[in-house]
């Protein structure tokens, strides 16, 4: 049974605005699935429907085998949710919030306290557990939010833009924790607008744009749809013609620029070593070499005709933007 399954899931708001326009999804048990798209694409609306915070206006959705519209209580018992903005009360302490969350999930008091302490330690917040959340950094808040979502050991974990606004170190800490949780068997459904996050974390990626699925697959499959990797080289020790002739044995030679030779790798990145050896055998020396692979942004451009917002920025650069 899939962890998440939707058929023609849609949401229309008052005034006729269609935020999600008939999405079909299937997320396998134990998978990390990333929902990638720009702001306003419909990611959060989809997550809110899957977590029973918003009723669908069309289609069906099953989470952990329960229908979000017909049996929302069963869905809520099975899921953990860490929402965008890390909805935390700044006046509470981390430990108070953990205990509150364990009570909301009907854990007996002793078990709730034990789980709270264990999870606070897991996310590195034991020292700060009795401080008010208002004094926490952004990264600490996200880690606490993640810990609260895990207090009842959920089958499916929803993370809505879990690293937006975080510095690279905090981002890396969240990624490691998500990977660890997934290795322990938790299915993870995360939304993100960061290509790198989807690329690094997800087993499969769904690209959403204007409320519809634009593409879906593993990061490798998606990138393969828009082209093969190519190699950029600077070669010395002989004429460029000889170098082109050697490179041509491995793939289509692409137009050179500024002394760079470029070749499309028909057989994928595994050909790099063979190319270097072949050039060496022909008496040519490779001075520099760069493997350029298609990115998920290339996929986004291919499928939607435009770049993903902020795709040119590294996440840390995005953080620095006002």
């Amino acid at each position, binding site marked *: 049974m899939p962890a998440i399954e939707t058929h023609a899931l849609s949401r229309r708001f008052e005034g006729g605005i269609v935020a999600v326009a008939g999405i079909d999804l299937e997320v396998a048990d134990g998978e990390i699935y990333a929902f990638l798209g720009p702001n306003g694409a419909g990611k959060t609306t989809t997550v*809110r429907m899957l977590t029973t915070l918003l009723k669908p206006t069309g289609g069906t959705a099953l989470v952990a085998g329960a229908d979000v519209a017909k049996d929302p209580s069963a869905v809520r018992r099975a899921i953990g949710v860490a*929402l*965008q903005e890390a909805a935390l009360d700044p006046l*509470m302490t981390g430990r*108070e919030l953990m205990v*509150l969350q364990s*009570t*909301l999930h*009907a854990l007996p008091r002793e078990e709730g306290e034990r789980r709270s302490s264990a999870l606070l330690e897991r996310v590195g917040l034991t020292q700060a557990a009795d401080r008010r959340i208002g004094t926490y950094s952004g990264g600490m808040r996200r880690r606490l939010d993640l810990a609260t979502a895990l207090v009842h050991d959920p089958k499916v974990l929803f993370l809505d833009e879990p690293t937006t606004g975080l510095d690279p170190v905090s981002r890396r800490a969240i990624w490691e924790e998500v990977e660890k949780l997934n290795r322990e068997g938790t299915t993870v459904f995360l939304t993100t607008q960061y290509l790198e996050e989807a690329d690094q974390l997800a087993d499969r990626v769904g690209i959403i744009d204007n409320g519809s699925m634009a593409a879906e697959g593993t990061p490798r499959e998606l990138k393969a749809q828009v082209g093969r990797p190519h190699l950029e080289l600077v070669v010395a020790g002989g004429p460029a013609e000889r170098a082109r002739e050697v490179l041509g044995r491995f793939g289509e030679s692409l137009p050179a620029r500024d002394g760079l030779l470029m070749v499309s790798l028909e057989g994928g990145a595994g050909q790099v070593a063979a190319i270097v050896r072949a050039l060496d055998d022909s008496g040519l020396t490779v001075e520099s070499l760069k493997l350029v692979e298609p990115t998920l942004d290339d996929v986004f451009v291919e499928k939607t005709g435009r770049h993903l917002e902020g795709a040119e920025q590294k996440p840390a650069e995005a953080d620095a933007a006002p």
Partner: protein
Amino acid sequence: MSGVRLASNARVIAILGRRSVRQAFRRPQFLAPILLFPTLFLAINTGGAGRATQIPSFPPVHGFLDFQLAGAMLQSTMLAGVSGSIALAMDIEIGFIDRLFAAPIPRWTIVVGRLTATATLGVLSGAWFLTIGLVFGAHIEGGVAGALVIVLLVALNAAAFGALGAALALKSGSPSVAQGIFPLVFVILFLSSAYFPRNLLLEPAKTIADWNPMSLIAEGLRDPVIYGLSWSALGKGLGGIAIVMAIGAAWSASAMRRRLRTG
């Protein structure tokens, strides 16, 4: 409802109530309207208009403070409702309410948890004003039993106004809208018998006060102080509170349904 579910819901209400009470103590701007403002108002009214008791037909009191205590307690509980409303609206604004909505708990426990906190603050308010009254020479004709009835009525009244406040917060989702009704509290109070006897009000204030449920509540709180305990006083107080609670509960339920529908 099974015993296990009942116990689980009671735990949820208790922990949400405890959180809200802590919130009030950790954010002084939530507590000040409940205790500080009505205390200042009481001091100013009692000090400045003390000779009002000499007006013919004024109820038989030992001093104007005896009469004014009910108004102060009523004002305090109404402002407790406003504070609760602001706090709930802030929970909606920062998204904390989504944490509660995504949990496997009945939605009504979220509102009842907050009302429990408001009622607890009502107990504090009742005890505070009775203590102040006794320290400054008020006579409570109903004795200890009368004082306990007053505290009970104040707590219930706080919960009733908490329900109205919760409805407003759920409907608007905006702390500034909730804060905006602050002045309305005073208008409603002045158009009741909270600060002055109904029989001495001029028209149309008197007619409005006759129909204003705040008058029933004010008199329900005042009678144990100036006349002693009676079923009619208790009935008036509970009747007025029931009207406010019924409106608040119905409006809250409707606002909650709408919020859940529209997300």
